[in-house]
């Protein structure tokens, strides 16, 4: 079974600086989808970024980008020019296209604090 590991329970960053949140996963599959979700204090989870494993190019969404290392099974999220509104829980998630299920497998999350 696939697993997702987020080894950093908490991270902090100064406003305008860059921070990287780590995510590793375990799978024997060659194709899959990876996601980063953000849950601000208001608690609605928002999709930040999505990566398809067969695409070598790292996904980017404005200040958010990923470093996808398929061989290392690593999917880290880089937040550039951090803003106070980036403070949230961040969850990494995995989706298998092969299994007869539509579920996402999540990590335990990383709480990001942003200091002015």
């Amino acid at each position, binding site marked *: 079974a696939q697993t997702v590991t987020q080894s950093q329970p908490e991270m902090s960053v100064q406003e305008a600086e860059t921070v990287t949140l780590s995510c590793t996963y375990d799978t024997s599959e060659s194709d899959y989808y990876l996601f980063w979700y953000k849950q601000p204090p208001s608690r*609605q*989870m928002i999709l930040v970024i999505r990566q398809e494993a067969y695409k070598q190019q790292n996904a980017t969404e404005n200040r958010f980008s990923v470093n996808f290392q398929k061989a290392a099974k690593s999917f880290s999220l880089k937040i550039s020019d951090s803003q106070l509104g980036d403070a949230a829980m961040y969850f990494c998630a995995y989706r298998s296209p092969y299994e007869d299920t539509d*579920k*996402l497998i*999540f990590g335990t999350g990383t709480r990001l604090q942003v200091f002015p």
Partner: protein
Amino acid sequence: EAGVTQFPSHSVIEKGQTVTLRCDPISGHDNLYWYRRVMGKEIKFLLHFVKESKQDESGMPNNRFLAERTGGTYSTLKVQPAELEDSGVYFCASSQDGADYGYTFGSGTRLTVV
């Protein structure tokens, strides 16, 4: 468009009582999912509806949990009787095209069983 709506946002009940959580998905989304996060742990899948049918309920912890989706619109998740270990945040999500493109989540219901 309106997002995924969940209510109540908080619920505190005593052990042994019954609680019903409700989720209204985005209009037109056939896929509806329930997830749960126990404090400090990962978010875990509970079940998936396609319209009114249960497509996958492999994550439902036991028979104290009952999920329904009336007419393929809103869904309810009933816990009866509630136990202390049921405490956590229950998330609902919906999607039009399935999980490959991610879901739209609601704000969650924080359930505390005392």
